[in-house]
């Protein structure tokens, strides 16, 4: 009996922490004023926010159902893929010139993001449109 009550309070704690972190991420996504700055706010949603919600589900199913840790798969998948997609979005920002220009490199070298093959040269110069 007390075991189940402790589990329910742990579920409540995880739910509150997860929703607070999700809210922080969404407010950051909405309120920051630079593309690269906006990039770092939703990482809270992807790691701690949804991670705590999944942990609440794991605890609840472990106590009241026949136990399920498969939700940890989703958590691990999100942890693995979040940096990759963030890296891609940062490269998109650099490509669209939506951020400060990266520092100059030594002679003869070029940032890999701007290094496009000659066959793709027609798309290498993006249209700069300011809002």
């Amino acid at each position, binding site marked *: 009996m007390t075991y189940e009550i402790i589990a329910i309070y742990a579920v409540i704690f995880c739910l509150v922490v997860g929703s607070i972190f999700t809210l922080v991420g969404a407010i950051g996504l909405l309120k920051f004023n630079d593309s690269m700055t906006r990039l770092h706010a939703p990482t809270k949603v992807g790691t701690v926010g949804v991670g705590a919600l999944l942990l609440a589900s794991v605890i609840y199913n472990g106590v009241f159902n026949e136990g399920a840790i498969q939700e940890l798969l989703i958590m691990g998948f999100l942890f693995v893929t979040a940096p990759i*997609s963030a890296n891609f979005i940062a490269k998109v920002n650099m490509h669209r010139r939506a951020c400060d220009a990266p520092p100059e490199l030594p002679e003869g070298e070029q940032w890999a993001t701007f290094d496009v093959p000659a066959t793709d040269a027609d798309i290498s110069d993006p249209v700069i449109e300011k809002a």
Partner: protein
Amino acid sequence: MTLATEMMDYALILAFVIVGLCQLMAMIRVVIGPDTGDRILALDTMVVNAIGLIVLMGLSQGTRIYFEVSLIIAMLGFVSTVAYARFVLRGDIIE
């Protein structure tokens, strides 16, 4: 027991409201986002929020059948984010 389950009902409602609000905020960023990167980032955030909402729905119904749904949405969300980014970067998705 009754107090704890009652508190959990309120916590579930709170989490539903907050995650739904975050989904709306990300949607606003999709609409007003000044650049393509912001829109891709907001769509990625919306996918993650949708996973959270589905997990909350499974928790409120006390069932486990929504686990596969959220796993597939996680995979599809990552693939679609990478596809959008590659389309902007290279003008093509599969070269």
